[in-house]
């Protein structure tokens, strides 16, 4: 069973009196454990696809299934619950909470989920921060860390609740190439180790090289959908 499925998705943005079609009937499915890149130039619809998959937005037409659940039929309030339990986000600009330490930032989604006691949460947080190589930085606040370290915290935060799907919107765009590669390597290793499904948007060739499947978008349509072998 696919972890996510998009069926004939259209998305039209209304900007003033102008309708701007961002997606024009795209369909694809994502299997569990995939490491998938949504690629394409600016304005091709990459971020829109991630927003729809992340339950942050609703399509103008078409259906989206997460596992076998039609999320397009859910009210906005329920979408927050779906995000809370099933989806991890990694943002281009890290978006950590500046007043919390690395540990507290990573613990935050677990607290929101509300299913673990503090001891368990602490164990999960320490484990995942060790995985991303930040064991010694757990008490640092974001402004005391480099961009790469912040993005690692963001990756840890996205993965700590063991979500079905991790969505990363251009996760390396604000990092230098070496740090970007390190982040992608960490994401890939976690993908392989935990079978967590990763979907990330990019127009960077280096990022695409890490992907195991690349869906290329152009003008809101799928230009190509190809599996690639690791280099």
């Amino acid at each position, binding site marked *: 069973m696919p972890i996510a499925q998009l069926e004939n998705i259209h998305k039209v943005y209304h900007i003033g009196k102008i309708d701007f079609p961002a997606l024009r009937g795209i369909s694809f499915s994502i299997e569990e454990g995939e490491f998938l890149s949504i690629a394409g130039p600016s304005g091709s619809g990459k971020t829109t696809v991630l927003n729809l998959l992340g339950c942050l937005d609703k399509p103008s037409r078409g259906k989206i299934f997460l596992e076998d659940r039609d999320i397009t039929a859910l009210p906005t309030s329920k979408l927050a619950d779906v995000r809370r339990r099933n989806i991890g986000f990694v943002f281009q600009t890290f978006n950590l*909470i500046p007043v919390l330490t690395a540990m507290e930032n990573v613990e935050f989604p677990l607290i929101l989920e509300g299913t673990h006691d503090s001891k368990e949460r602490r164990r999960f947080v320490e484990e995942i921060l060790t995985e991303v190589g930040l064991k010694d930085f757990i008490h640092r606040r974001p402004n005391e860390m480099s961009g790469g370290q912040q993005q690692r915290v963001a990756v840890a935060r996205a993965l700590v609740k063991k979500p079905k799907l991790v969505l990363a919107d251009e996760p390396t765009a604000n990092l230098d190439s070496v740090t970007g590669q390190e982040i992608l390597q960490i994401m890939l290793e976690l993908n392989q180790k935990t079978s967590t499904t990763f979907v990330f948007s990019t127009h960077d060739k280096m990022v695409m090289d890490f992907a195991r499947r690349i869906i290329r978008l152009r003008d809101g349509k799928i230009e190509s959908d190809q599996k690639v072998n690791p280099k």
Partner: protein
Amino acid sequence: MKMLLKLAFRNVFRYRRRTIITFSAISYGLGLMALGICLYNGVNTHAMDSIIDNQTAHLKILAPGYFEEKNEVPLEFTIDEPQKIKSLLKDNQDIQGIESRILFQCSIISGMDELPCLGVAIEPEVDPLVFKIKDSITDGRFLESSEPKIILGSSLARDLGLQVGDDIVLRMFLSTEDFIWNALDMEITGIAKTENPTVNRQTVFIPLSLAQEALSLDNRVTELAIRIEDRNQLLDVRNFIQSRLATLDTDYELVSFKDYASDFVELMKMRSRIQVLIPLMMILIASLGIVNTMLMAVLERTREIGMLAAMGMRKMEVMLVFVFEGAIIGLFGSLAACVLGGLGGWYLETKGFSMAFMGKEITDKLLSFLPMEVFYGDLTAGTLLFTLALGIVVSILASLYPAYKAVKLDPIQALRHVG
């Protein structure tokens, strides 16, 4: 909830300068409000006490018609049977003392000077049970029964350049219309400086028996002044006296200090309306500070709000973070206001607030309707608790709008926000 509180608490100290400004606005605003309430309560209590202790007692029995003409201090309306009334009331334990008195118009002649004043004939042995004139003797001594001696208010003595031991002539008017008067040679035995400037400026005290003789009143008096043990029992005692007076053939009027001090009570009511305005203004200042701070926070943290929403934080939780932030600023601001108000209130309660700095002219004008020269505060735990609660409630209410703005943000737009 704990996490939301932690987040709110740290966010409060994230923008330190802005928080301090808001915090200061709340603490100064509410601190001044607490001080205002403290002063108002103090003036209310002390001023009324001053009127009761030196002028009106708690209750007065008067001959019918006297009260209406009281400003003329007429001698035509007298009580013919003061002893009988006293004995009728003596079995009430709540009554501390009943004094027969005569109020009369008079003037003091000292050499070439003559000053009009209010004469009060008192029973020297009963007066200390009803009034506090004896306690306010600053020079000399209190009166003794039927001696031809007089006590002068301190300002009056000063204006005439008189002191204890000096002789004066007291011209007592038997009738204001016909200008019939009697004069007594008297020696000043004491100077009274009460809390009440009106008494100090225009009142003299002489023994009752002397006045009755000089004014040809026999055993008659113009009033019976009654002090009760506890002001809260006023209504009960009043009903008791009323019922006893009803057994007499003659009608009498029974008036309380509130009736006597009606001008002052009116002034108090007006002040209490003003007093409502002060907290309202303070609330406005505090609210604007909080609203401004929180709106800035929402604007600056737009992307963070988007991220929180993306992570699945519910709208109510996002809202709570901002409301908690407002409440925390309000709590600390109000605590500081309580400290400021408390210290200021303590100062007002112990040292008082003198109007002297306003200059003699203004002070004299104010003293024509205020029964005290120095205002003392009355600091209560209730005032401080009210200040604390008001600060917190207002801060919470003021942060609701910014919090609402935060949850209305579209997560996608918020995430794209460039701050």
